[in-house]
């Protein structure tokens, strides 16, 4: 009896553990030499964006529509969770020629 119950509990744990990561992904967007790559990223609401700034300069990821404005210090990584769907054009406030697009599915 006891081993059976144990197995059932284990199985439940496994299911629970699998459900969460399958839902939300972590996507890396790198800023290096004043270039954002990839320049176009598809993601979903709930996904985490890992903004990696490899430059010695500060950058921002600023949504044109005002949905987000993330500042990334030189040589730092900042994580932010996507909360709103939409196709968002964003740029760096300090280097306006750095432009990219985030396509966020609901």
């Amino acid at each position: 009896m006891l081993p059976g119950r144990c197995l059932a509990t284990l199985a439940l744990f496994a299911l629970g553990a699998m459900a969460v990561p399958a839902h939300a992904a972590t996507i890396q967007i790198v800023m290096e030499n004043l270039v954002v790559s990839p320049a176009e990223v598809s993601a979903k609401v709930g996904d985490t964006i890992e903004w990696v700034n490899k430059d010695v300069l500060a950058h921002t990821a600023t949504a044109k529509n005002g949905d987000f404005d993330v500042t990334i210090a030189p040589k730092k990584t900042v994580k932010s969770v996507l909360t709103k769907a939409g196709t968002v054009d964003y740029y760096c406030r300090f280097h306006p020629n750095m432009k990219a697009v985030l396509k966020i599915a609901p």
Partner: protein
Amino acid sequence: MFVRLSIAVAALGLLTGAAQAQGAKPTDPQIAHIAYTAGVIDINAAKQAETKASNKEVKAFAKDMARDHEAVNKQALDLVKKLKVTPEDNDTSKALSKQAADKLAELGKLKGAAYDKAYIDNEVAYHKTVNTALETQLIPSASNPELKGLLQTGLKIFQGHQQHAEHVAASLK
């Protein structure tokens, strides 16, 4: 305006002229000095613009220049320290500094929209010249790979600045 721009471009031509006059290609300590001096010049111009500029975009651009060039120059200082290289003053650095001081004085006499335009036009011309010097002279002459790498990174950053300056200049027209 056209005349002012030509003067700036001609004076900046000294960068290549002076170095060529020395005959041999610049050494690493000289390259480090030239690159650092070029950064200081743009920081000084930006500081003047932060107080004098009236256009919002021009003011923001000046802030960006001061922030970026200070960051790159800090990187350069850290590198020369690490490499135990002492930056060496030279004719190119001297010509650059002299020309920049004259330009700063000239810009200092202007006000309002005339100042904004003259500052941005000079930023376009200045970054263009520095980028050409980096590409054709300083990067090929650098022998230390880390110094070369920093100059290459600098070039990419300053090309971004040039585009940014061109964009702001176009918006003033």
